[in-house]
């Protein structure tokens, strides 16, 4: 039992401790309304982080995710402008845009041999340029109720848990699908092999370009889904996605993902996202001003990497 416990990813322990602290300080979070609301707020970061994990495990970064979230919210609101009948095709168009962005990122990295940090940085600047040009710099349009359903609606009067936000269902479904692809298919193995050693993976017959395209598309599509959720519960603004890509990377790193080469798991990454959100919640309960979040995020980001490196060296990995 003991060795098992030692091998367990410490992120789960941290998560339990944080939840305990939150529950003691504010019993509201023990009630369904409290923890469901918490999960709802964590849903976009969890989805983004798991998408980002695909790119991190492939050995790269996706810095364009946050800008894509903004573009999704701004674009949907302009295209829809309150017209509820158009919601479905706008969602399909946005997911299609996500696929295009992901493929473009991957091809720039694969064909033009541009490091992913620069390629996605260029994409980030381009996407926020498009969002600003399109909207003229200020939020326009209006999101109809059935678009906001995903982020805002609560299914009420359920037995046991009483309420269930639709955002949480979306999070569970999307993360389960991405868990399956990462940990139960050959694709997942190829992805990790490529992140570990691209040359060896190529010689072993891994199609690098195709593998990379899927990884970047997963990240971009998850950004679009996160954007749809955020548009639902946070509303339309031009800075809704700012900094989210860094939160996603932070969450993946807290979960133990190793930068520039696979090792991260979907479960631990979701736990990482919840740790981040729990930390923000805790700071909020304790009455710290918002900027303190940044300081804490920076400190836990560095310490997560230090601890992961220490564990790896000790276990001889």
């Amino acid at each position: 039992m003991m060795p098992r416990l030692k091998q367990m990813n410490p992120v789960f322990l941290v998560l339990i401790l944080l939840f305990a602290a939150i529950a003691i300080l504010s019993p509201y979070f023990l009630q369904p309304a409290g923890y469901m609301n918490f999960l709802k707020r964590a849903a976009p970061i969890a989805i983004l982080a798991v998408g980002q994990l695909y790119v991190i495990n492939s050995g790269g970064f996706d810095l364009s995710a946050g800008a894509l979230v903004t573009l999704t919210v701004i674009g949907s609101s302009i295209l829809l402008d309150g017209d509820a009948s158009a919601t479905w095709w706008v969602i399909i168009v946005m997911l299609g845009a996500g696929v295009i962005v992901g493929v473009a990122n991957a091809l720039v990295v694969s064909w033009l041999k541009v490091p992913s940090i620069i390629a996605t940085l260029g994409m980030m600047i381009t996407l926020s340029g498009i969002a600003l040009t399109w909207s003229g710099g200020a939020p326009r349009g209006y999101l109809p109720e059935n678009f906001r359903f995903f982020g805002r609606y609560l299914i009420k009067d359920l037995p046991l848990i009483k309420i269930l936000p639709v955002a949480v269902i979306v999070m569970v479904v999307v993360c389960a699908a991405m868990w399956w692809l990462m940990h139960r298919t050959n694709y997942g193995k190829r992805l990790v092999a490529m992140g570990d050693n691209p040359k060896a993976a190529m010689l072993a017959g891994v199609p690098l370009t195709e593998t990379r395209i899927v990884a970047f598309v997963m990240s971009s599509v998850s950004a679009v889904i996160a954007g749809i959720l955020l548009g639902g519960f946070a509303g339309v603004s031009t800075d809704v996605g700012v900094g989210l890509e860094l939160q996603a990377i932070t969450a993946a790193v807290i979960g133990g993902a190793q930068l520039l080469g696979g090792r991260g798991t979907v479960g631990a990454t979701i736990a990482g996202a919840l740790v981040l959100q729990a930390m923000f919640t805790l700071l909020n309960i304790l009455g710290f001003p918002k900027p303190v979040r940044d300081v804490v995020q920076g400190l836990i980001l560095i310490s997560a990497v230090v601890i992961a490196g220490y564990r790896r060296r000790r276990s001889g990995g």
Partner: protein
Amino acid sequence: MKVPKPKNMTALAPFLLLLAAVVIYVGVAIATGQTQYLTAENLLGLLGRSIALGITAIGQTFAILIASIDLSVANLISVSAVLASSIMSGDPSMMLPAVAAVLAVGVVVGLINGLVITQFEVNPLIATLGMALILQGLLSATFNNFAGEVPEAFQVFAYGQVGGISISLIFLIGLTIAAWVFLRFTKPGSNIYSVGGNPDAAKLAGMRTTRVVIMAHVICSVCATIAGLYLASRLRSGAPWIGRDGVYDLESIAVVVIGGTALSGGRGGVWGTLMGVMIFSLIDSIFNIAGVDAFAKQILRGVIIVAAVAVYAMRSRRIEA
């Protein structure tokens, strides 16, 4: 077709890109009949508008040469500008203490970055990203508007002129020459190339690689604080958002890479970076003359960064992330 030797390309590519940018600039100015933009004064002014980016990018060159990177420069610029202007508070006698304090902050931040990277073996992206978040948080927890005031004597840094050339431009070129001499002719300078090119070989050759990495990060952070001093002098006061607004972290990395310094370290130099800065300001002016919408400008900028890096990357057949 014969492939040119990489070594020649590295020196030549930024120059060719710069030449192309100049040709397009001249072409657009003539085509739109705005030949008043073609005076020597105007061309010098181009660089003058990017002093802060230039100073930051010279520092960033050191970090990238040792195969590291510094994402904390933008927030450090804000910290430096706000700190300088609050210490000075319009009092000329406080100029020296303020500059000393700000430079000391730069040394400390660079030391911490370098120590976290070398002692805890934290990936530099993460280490400096964490530092960026910490600096930003501390800053916005303390200030939310313009803070303090810069005395008139200090505004000379941004607005003063010697023989018709602005002092800040002379400073930038002087800094570039100093950095070039340091990298080209001194032992610590050549150590930077050795450590960046192959850290294991440098270590086996008896070099104290951790010291070199820490030194490069200190230089990078100190340059960022100088850029902050310049911006405080230019805006006459420090604001906690100036670093973020200028996107100095990502832009400085972009110009260094466009200037031909490899992200994998060990190759490149500060003259390339200076050319990268000029290419960036030329692109900006081309858009201005051509009357491109401010937001559309940003779209083109993103595309150009990627395209320019692709020009370098195409010749390297390595598989990179």
